[in-house]
């Protein structure tokens, strides 16, 4: 009898799990009233575009809706250039880097690929990319060098040679739920200007199950139903605040880890306090900040320009885009730039086709704005329609004021990999901000010493 019950119990548990697996994720949401429509469509991992004889293998990490935007652009390109065909592979960034290196080692890299500007020194050190000076007007080429936004453009020129063509600027900004702000008596058009103002706003927007906000002494921090904000990506969040407090991750000469400076500790302490002292943000590990913003559970979300299409797909959320929240004494926001690079062994007709494609994509940079990213070409960026691209414009402009890029370094990926678990440990309350940053500095210094 016992064994039969055990068998039935095990089977029921299994059937239950299998039934759950077959349900769409949205139907498992704790809040049945939450709206998650329309469901995002997966970007095809591999797309074959065109049938021309000159074939380009093109790898990138644009696995979100930005991949759809790029593929749509490339489809137009092959229509206009029928002699060229393209196979694009959208590969998760974490997999793309090892795959690229393995492909270079194996001698079979793609014909072109997209990474970030900060990673140019890494590929350059390995000798696996080639310059393309002939594409810029400084060398008689078609692309106006001065039309590319700084400081990203300068980072593409190494020892007087241009490497790749910039696609965009992308980075952190702020999304605001207009309805929740209005309900709390706040104006969605007015962004706070200091750490104190920001904290006061977040406290007003953090509500417990009894309707008390986080500034109320009777606030129940263990039963929060609406968060003021959420820490979506600690790496970008911390570095943005680090710049606001005047710090850097490594020294200007790239030889010393400076992440554990006072500025660093102040920046991380601010985020830590939001979570554990003021309770205006949940611990980031295990918290789905995008879905929470989409379902009205988070009032203000600091995240990347790439969030545009996701939030635009949720008609029930009325939003406004702000530049990055200012907490430190000066404006500061982290941003990066996607760049199209050419491997050293792309030659002949393929090289000609790749260069033609890169120039075409750059000249159609306005179409790329549909991905949510900020076009790299200044003339195109400044000409964007404010009604269609409010986040690209509002957030893009902030990069010119207080934007900081990840320092280009042969070890930029390694440095990020050393930094991120430490930030995660601090925000999971395993370490103090000082301990976490000291450990991060120790690991980053070891990387720099090995360089």
């Amino acid at each position, binding site marked *: 009898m016992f*064994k*039969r019950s*055990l*068998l039935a119990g*095990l*089977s029921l548990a*299994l*059937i239950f*799990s*299998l039934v*759950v*697996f077959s349900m769409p*994720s949205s139907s*498992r*949401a*704790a809040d049945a009233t939450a709206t998650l429509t329309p469901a995002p469509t997966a970007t095809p991992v591999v797309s074959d575009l065109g049938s021309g004889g000159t074939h380009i293998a093109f790898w990138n990490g644009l696995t979100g809706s930005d991949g759809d935007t790029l593929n749509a652009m490339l489809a137009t390109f092959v229509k206009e250039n029928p002699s060229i065909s393209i196979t694009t592979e959208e590969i998760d960034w974490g997999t793309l*880097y*090892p795959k690229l*290196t*393995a492909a*270079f*080692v194996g001698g079979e890299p793609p014909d072109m690929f997209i990474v970030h500007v900060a990673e140019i020194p890494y590929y350059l050190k*390995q*000798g*696996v990319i080639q310059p393309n000076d002939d594409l810029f007007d400084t060398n008689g080429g078609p692309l106006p060098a001065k039309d590319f936004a700084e400081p990203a453009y300068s980072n593409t020129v190494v020892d007087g040679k241009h490497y790749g063509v910039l696609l965009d600027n992308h980075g952190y900004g702020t999304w605001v739920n207009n309805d929740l702000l209005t309900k709390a008596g706040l104006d969605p058009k007015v962004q706070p200007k200091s750490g104190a103002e920001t904290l006061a706003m977040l406290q007003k927007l953090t509500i417990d199950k009894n309707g008390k906000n986080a500034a109320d002494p009777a606030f129940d921090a*263990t*039963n929060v139903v609406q968060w003021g904000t959420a820490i979506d990506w600690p790496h970008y969040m911390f570095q943005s605040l680090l710049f606001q407090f005047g710090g850097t991750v490594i020294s200007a000469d790239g030889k010393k880890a400076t992440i554990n400076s006072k500025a660093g500790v102040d920046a991380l302490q601010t985020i830590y306090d939001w979570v554990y002292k003021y309770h205006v943000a949940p*611990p*980031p*590990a*295990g*918290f*789905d900040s995008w*879905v*929470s913003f989409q379902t009205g*559970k988070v009032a203000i979300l600091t995240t990347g320009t790439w969030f545009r299409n996701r939030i635009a797909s949720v008609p029930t959320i009325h939003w406004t885009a702000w530049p990055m929240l200012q907490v430190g004494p000066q404006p500061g926001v982290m941003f990066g730039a996607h760049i199209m690079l050419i491997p050293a062994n792309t030659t002949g007709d393929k090289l000609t086709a790749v260069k033609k494609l890169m120039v075409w994509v750059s000249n159609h940079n306005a179409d790329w704005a549909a991905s949510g990213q900020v076009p790299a070409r200044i003339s195109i960026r400044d000409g964007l329609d404010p009604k269609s691209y409010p986040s690209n414009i509002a957030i893009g402009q902030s990069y010119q004021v207080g934007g900081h890029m990840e320092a280009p370094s042969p070890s930029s*990926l*390694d440095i990020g*990999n050393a930094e991120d*678990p*430490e930030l*995660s*440990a*601090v*925000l*999971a309350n*395993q*370490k103090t901000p000082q301990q976490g940053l000291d450990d991060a500095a120790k690991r980053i210094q070891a*990387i720099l010493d090995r360089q």
Partner: protein
Amino acid sequence: MSNTIVTGSAPAATQQATRRFQINLRRRESLAAYVFLLPFMFFFCLFVVRGVAAAVNMSFYDWDVLSPVHKYLGLGNYNELINDDIWWLSLKNTLIFAVMTVAGSSLVALGAALALNQPVRGRGFFRVLLYAPSLLSAGVVGTTWVWLLNTQFGIVNYALHFFGIPAINWLGDSNLVLPALSLTTIWWTFGFPMLLFLAGLQGIPTLFYEAARIDGASPRQIFFYITLPLLRPTILFVTVLGFISHMQLFSQNFIMTTGGPGYASYSVIYYLYQIAWKSFRMGYGSAVAILLAAIIVIFTALQFILIGRRVQY
């Protein structure tokens, strides 16, 4: 009838001839066995032994995959490893995970096997059903369980909510993340040990049970004094195999937690991946792999000593 004196020479010659024949036969059989083994050995040496030898060699170098020159470090990588706090943390996490998962998986598998060994209706169906999760890929299991265990939208917390239990941050709490990964892994992998236990149970002669029942043994006594002792070879096999497998934890934490929060779910193989495929330090990564292999060998030997000593074949 004449008595025939049997001399020793003829039988001795026959015996010698028989012995020669047996030796030749044994040689021929051995030769045939070697010939049959040869293709396997060839590919085993080509893809496994060569790889292991290359890894051992690499572990003595600063081996950058994109550089043609590799600096010889001697035991430098091993020296760095024993002073590496992340290595020790990863090893500790891996051991905790392996012990939890082997124990949990073995218990669940044994319970399921005992139940499935009974003459219940639809036994074949239940066997397939309980084995089904083992057929899923790591990606499917990981992605699904991330949603099941999601703090805000997961069905596990939704169910707990009915009992008045507040939402639990399964994958974001450093104290819960390893048990949560272990739970996922047990659900995913208990099917195979269940089959092994089932085979073990079916290999126990029924006459033991009949004799015990005649002697008035209770089901509990039968289980502890007949079933369990006679299952020891299977238990040894399941635990050894499970330990070797779970010491190589990678896909679950790679997909579900990326090693976090902090380093709370870093496993040795995950750390190895970070070193070898994110930082491309193949020499240091090889040292991690070699040391992990040595640790697995030591623990396997310990298991054989501790459990194997009491095995009754």
